[in-house]
């Protein structure tokens, strides 16, 4: 949807770096996060979780817990209904196990009590009679016929024969004649890869406060990436009308996709309904690791054929994604994005979703893409090594471009891949000398980006300042970017605008903050809302001046006559117009609602230099540069922050982060000590190079930037390490024991 015929090229506010509006609150501890909500008479909710990986729940005896002084309510799956919609039912069953505990940490009961101490005591008094079942936590094992079945009857009919029931879906993408393509290649390489499940690792644990009144009204305050989605899911689970449940999103301490679903909200609502009191639940870090979404782990095969001069002739990928205990679509995104960076005549990807006894996978920044692209970019790099070709030249030679039929179907519009690759090639990093035990790796990355349902109100206050009401929790500084775009359009200073995130009663439905959609979609809606407000203001001024509405134009925050023929009037500023609005027709506002298209896909290229200690297997990232197309960087600090943050999360994924399960199916490392996210001293400065190839689908050319940067680091690091140690790595994370072993096998 090209909303704009005349693209704005010269910016005054967009592209500057004003102080973030939420900064002071956050650094002084004043910001209201999920756990900061309170209500009179509030109870503490705690959740009892399965100590087993897979077990039938024969019975739950809550009588002793209920009898404990200070306990006001106990709930189990018996306190929930049976929603018709299967996906909602899955969410409910994930929030509270029904009949079977499907993973270590699966919720089985919950209490609400006067204090945390009483609540913890009550949990110990709940007697659950478990019948332990065989479990499976590995994706390849789970696919084999005869594997323990996590959930029966969940497989779609199109799944090929020969798998266990855990394989719930299969997807296929591609075009062209593979066989002919591989026949044309001078070199064909086929490799298998695995990646571990990694957690989004947000600092703020999930938290909510629920309050249900006896007449069926509900209020929910929670930390989420999407209050409207929370309302939809919770209202259905609780059997309520959407109008009766108001959801307010708190300030959010990180989400990265992991807060796009619900884990505790229905439980708090059920406890509140049963106890008649407000109930607050705050997860511990242990619970966050055990029961909220990590991303999928994967097992993959990739086969690519290349000519001597570096042209890819055919490419094929098989992706097996483990999504935990419930069906998931993530593998589809992996299968679609695997080869997106390449212009291919023959390509095929097949993906399978697999159930295991692990927590339900949740979205994590570009869900599904990093693993698939890691495997593809590793094979491309190995081909470059084998054929003695420059890895950037090979990418340039095969790069997708405007007009390329993508590996997943659509034909690309203007995209920034080639420009990004060229920027990387021209950058001094690419040719800087490497030291002993060092290696350089690179990788392309891709993400679709999304637009979606968006609703914005823009109010002109009576003093001429502006209040914006939008519905997407700010996880990356979007309030500043939205204010900037409004200020730009209205021709007023940034400081005159304040943007807030409203509750579900204040606006129409807004999609979740995901898909890198907010700066694009909410920005677009804000610009249009501003234009609508401008139209109203010009109309009011036209009446005052007694001229045609068309004869009034808007410039630099003022209404002006469109030219000498329109008459001679002094410009009226937004302040002047607002001050007399009561006399000209009442309050002035602009609104805009859209299901936005045209988000514009996003590409990035990362360059990584690493040094591997040959005696310990420890990897140090010595230099790292991110190149990415942002369309238009509204607030460059935040764009750089997204690029750096994604790179860091990807580096952690590549080197140390992993969910470790014991033979008993229990999670071994549910804490930040043994789940190793990189610390600041593990990292070099992450250099950033922002490219601006305007997105035709946005009035200012904006593209989402939040997800693409987590995609390339996995392969960039693996390629760098493989080159540094002279041996190809096929497994993530590349933790020191694995690297030391690999290095000694070579000798």
């Amino acid at each position, binding site marked *: 949807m090209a909303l704009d015929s005349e693209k704005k090229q010269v910016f005054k506010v967009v592209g500057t770096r004003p102080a973030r509006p939420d900064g002071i609150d956050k650094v002084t501890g004043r910001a209201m996060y999920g756990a900061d909500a309170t209500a009179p008479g509030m109870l503490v909710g705690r959740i009892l979780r399965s100590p087993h990986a897979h077990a039938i729940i024969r019975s739950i005896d809550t009588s002793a817990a209920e009898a404990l002084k200070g306990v006001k309510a106990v709930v189990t799956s018996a306190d929930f209904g049976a929603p018709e919609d299967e996906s909602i039912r899955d969410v409910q069953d994930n929030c509270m196990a029904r009949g079977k505990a499907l993973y270590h940490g699966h919720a089985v009961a919950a209490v609400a009590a006067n204090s945390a101490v009483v609540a913890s005591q009550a949990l110990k008094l709940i007697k659950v009679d478990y019948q332990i079942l065989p479990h499976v936590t590995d994706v390849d094992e789970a696919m084999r016929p005869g594997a323990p079945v996590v959930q029966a009857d969940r497989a779609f009919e199109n799944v090929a024969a020969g798998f266990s029931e855990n394989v719930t879906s299969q997807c296929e993408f591609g075009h062209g004649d593979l066989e002919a393509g591989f026949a044309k290649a001078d070199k064909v390489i086929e490799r298998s890869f695995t990646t571990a499940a990694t957690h989004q690792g947000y600092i703020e644990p999930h938290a909510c406060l629920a309050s249900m009144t006896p007449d069926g009204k509900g209020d929910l305050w929670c930390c989420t990436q999407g209050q409207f989605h929370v309302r939809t899911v919770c209202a259905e689970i609780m059997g309520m009308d959407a109008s009766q449940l108001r959801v307010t999103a708190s300030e959010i301490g990180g989400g990265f996709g992991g807060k796009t679903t619900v884990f505790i909200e229905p439980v708090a609502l059920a406890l509140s309904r049963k106890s008649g009191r407000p109930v607050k639940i705050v997860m511990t870090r242990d619970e966050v690791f055990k029961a909220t979404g990590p991303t999928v782990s994967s097992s993959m095969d990739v086969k690519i054929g290349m000519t001597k001069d570096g042209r890819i002739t055919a490419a094929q990928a098989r992706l097996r994604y483990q999504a935990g205990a419930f069906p998931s679509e993530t593998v589809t995104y992996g299968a679609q994005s695997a080869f997106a960076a390449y212009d291919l005549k023959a390509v095929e990807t097949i993906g399978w979703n697999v159930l295991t006894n692990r927590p339900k996978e949740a979205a994590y920044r570009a869900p599904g893409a990093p693993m698939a692209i890691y495997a593809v970019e590793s094979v491309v790099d190995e081909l470059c090594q084998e054929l003695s070709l420059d890895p950037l030249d090979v990418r340039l030679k095969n790069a997708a471009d405007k007009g390329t039929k993508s590996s997943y179907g659509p034909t690309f519009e203007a995209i920034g891949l080639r420009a990004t690759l060229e920027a990387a090639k021209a950058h001094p990093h690419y040719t800087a000398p490497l030291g002993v035990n060092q290696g350089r790796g690179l990788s392309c990355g891709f993400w679709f980006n999304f637009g979606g349902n968006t609703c914005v109100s823009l109010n002109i206050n009576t003093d001429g300042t502006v209040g914006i009401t939008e519905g997407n929790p700010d996880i990356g500084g979007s309030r500043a970017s939205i204010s900037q775009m409004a200020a730009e359009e209205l021709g007023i200073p940034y400081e005159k605008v304040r943007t807030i995130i409203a509750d579900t009663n204040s606006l129409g439905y807004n999609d979740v903050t995901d898909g890198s959609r907010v700066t694009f979609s909410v920005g677009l809606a804000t610009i249009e809302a501003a234009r609508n407000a401008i139209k109203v203001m010009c109309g009011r001024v036209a009446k005052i001046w007694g001229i045609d509405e068309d004869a009034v134009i808007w410039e630099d925050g003022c209404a002006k006559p469109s030219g000498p023929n329109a008459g001679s009037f002094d410009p009226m500023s937004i302040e002047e117009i607002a001050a007399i609005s009561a006399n000209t027709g009442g309050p002035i506002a602009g609104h805009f609602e859209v299901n936005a298209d045209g988000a514009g896909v996003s590409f990035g290229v990362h360059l990584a230099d690493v040094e591997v200690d040959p*005696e310990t297997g420890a990897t140090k990232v010595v230099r790292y540069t991110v190149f990415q197309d942002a369309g238009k960087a509204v607030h460059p600090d935040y764009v750089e922050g997204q690029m750096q943050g994604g790179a860091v999360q990807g580096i952690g994924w590549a080197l140390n982060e992993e969910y470790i399960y014991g033979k008993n199916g229990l999670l071994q490392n549910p804490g930040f000590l*043994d789940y*190793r996210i990189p610390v600041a001293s*593990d990292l070099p400065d992450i250099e950033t190079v922002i490219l601006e190839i305007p997105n035709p689908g946005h009035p200012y050319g904006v593209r989402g930037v939040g997800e693409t940067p987590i995609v390339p680091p996995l392969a960039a690091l693996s390629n760098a390490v493989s080159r540094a140690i002279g041996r190809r790595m096929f497994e993530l994370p590349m933790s*020191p024991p694995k690297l030391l072993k690999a290095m000694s096998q070579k000798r």
Partner: protein
Amino acid sequence: MRYEKPSTAQEATNLLATEPGIARVLSGGTDVLVQIKAGMIEPDLIVDIKNLDRIRDITPEQGGFRIGAAVSGATLGEHAGVTALWPGVVEAFELIGSTQVQGRATMAGNLCNGSPAADSVPAMVAANAIARIAGPDGARNCPVQDIPVSPGRTALAKGEFITSIFLPARPERAADAYLRFTPRTEMDIAVASAAVSLELDADGTCTSARIALGAIAPTVVLVDAASICIIGTKLDATSLEAMSEACSAACNPIDDKRGTVEFRTRIVGVLAKRAALIAYKRAGGRA
């Protein structure tokens, strides 16, 4: 749960000795409070020792230093005398945690928590540090080396606690060093570690060596077989290699989420070798 903050060692000992339930000494609390919060322990009595006389003092004694049991990492790190005499002990202790943790963590707490991976313990053992213990039967001295008996357990009897740790005097041309391996550069737990304390003669030949290893056995291991390899040498490559192998041979590690037996065994020798070279250089030797 009762909390007491006595002002004499006698009082503290009485409280600990007479508590019928679970009693815990509280020093910096960076282990105790974390364990309580995680529900790993539910003590009936907490005896905070930070109010005891001289418990936070660093006192010169017979050419060495007596370090009060409640001296924090931050305080020790700022003490020029200790840092000059036992740089390896100080660097080991300062590796613990973050700036915040350093403001509270103590060596005595690190020792009595009983973790095989405790960072300051191998350094104290290599330094031949002596703990002073208060107890129902009065005070006694005990080499730090003899305090850990198994993961989480110490040789302290009921009612006993450490009041200070003594780091002895040492001749000229002596120094120590500590290295640990962690997948991250900080905020991590040692997968293996090595502390080396050396004395050299005037021409740089090693005359005495103590090598202690951490995280590769249920308790800290002092490896005499490794010391022998470098005593009488100038730490040439061959002797260092032999020392490194002796360290690996002394390992009795476990396979766990933090590292494999194979990995721990290999890298502990590497760490010992590297730590020995640092200590040698600090002592004035030229390798």
